[in-house]
């Protein structure tokens, strides 16, 4: 695992490096495929842009599988650094960059999940809805915690399918490709996961959410 606390003296240079040729990735005419091609040629600014573009979803997918933020961030860091060290690992002709990236993230997160000892879930795993009253918020929080625990009990592959379905914008075809399975197998994972969660929620009496 890479060091998580960098030397603060170097932060300035890193911050300036993160401002690549195209200052705002949202306005950038370069898409992930083009950025990935530049990264393969050793373009560090393109790498910074690619990280900026995909980091939120990479962390979200890992977090959904691992259920813990700190570990999810470690996985994201690991995935991006390994990609920088060996950008040829991504072969443009075979898949979209996002599909490939989420596949690597899912595999890495599943590896970590298998090795990790079970730890309590993050307290603030799910966010509160400010529109609800305090009592409703409390009830909502309890239901959300029950759901988070139910998700944590799902088999890893089902958690991965849930993560790709809800936390990325991948199509079913791309999500199935990211998991290296057929679309039918992916849909089957989703169906089983949703059914288990629904049954657990109903059994727990958390069915009155509107």
């Amino acid at each position, binding site marked *: 695992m*890479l060091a*998580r*606390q*960098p030397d603060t003296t*170097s*932060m300035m*240079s*890193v*911050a300036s*490096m*993160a401002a690549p040729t195209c200052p705002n990735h949202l306005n950038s005419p370069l898409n992930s*495929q*083009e950025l*990935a*091609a*530049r*990264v*393969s*040629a*050793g373009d*560090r600014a393109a*790498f910074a842009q690619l*990280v*900026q573009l995909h*980091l*939120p979803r990479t*962390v979200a997918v890992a*977090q*959904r599988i691992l259920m813990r933020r700190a570990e999810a*961030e470690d996985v*994201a*860091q690991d995935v*991006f650094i390994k990609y*920088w*060290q*060996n*950008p*040829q690992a991504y072969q*443009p002709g075979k898949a979209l960059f996002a599909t490939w990236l989420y596949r690597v993230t899912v595999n890495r997160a599943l590896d970590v999940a298998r090795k990790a000892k079970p730890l309590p879930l993050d307290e603030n795993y*799910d*966010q509160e809805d400010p529109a609800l009253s305090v009592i409703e918020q409390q009830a909502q929080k309890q*239901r*959300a915690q029950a*759901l988070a625990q139910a998700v944590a009990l799902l088999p890893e592959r089902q958690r991965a399918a*849930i993560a790709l379905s*809800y*936390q990325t914008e991948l199509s079913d075809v791309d999500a199935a490709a990211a998991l290296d399975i057929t679309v039918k197998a992916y849909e089957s994972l*989703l*169906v*089983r996961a*949703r*059914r288990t969660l*629904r049954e657990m*929620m*109903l059994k727990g009496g*958390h*069915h*009155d*959410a*509107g």
Partner: protein
Amino acid sequence: MTQDEFSDLLDLYGADLSRWPLDQRVAAQALLASKSGEVWQIYQAAQFIDQQLAQPAAAPSRALLDRILLASTEVAEPPFNFWALFAGWQRAMAGGAICASLMAGLYSGWSTQLTAYSTVTSTTSSITTDDIPGLTYAPGEVGEWQ
């Protein structure tokens, strides 16, 4: 549509009925309109699950981005790969352009050589020994041509 069929479709498509195939959506809406308590419980549980799972994770901090970029400076840069500059059709175009340049170069070199050869042969064919000063025929000596 039965309650079991409704549950199966909820598991397959999720609780957002707008994503269901039209005929099944119409049947599901009719079932929900019947106001069966159990059907609504199932539907609301599915809605809650979808809503919770779709909640975006908190945005990663700037510190995480900086940490990744800093760590990337501490590892060796990837080796330069010329072909990586071109992706997909651009790679094919670049390859084609290089091949075309090579072919053009070869053809140009070959045709220049041909012209030079034909010039030399046409010139040399008209040269006689008389044209070369000092070169005389001397039989019986070391060489025939001196």
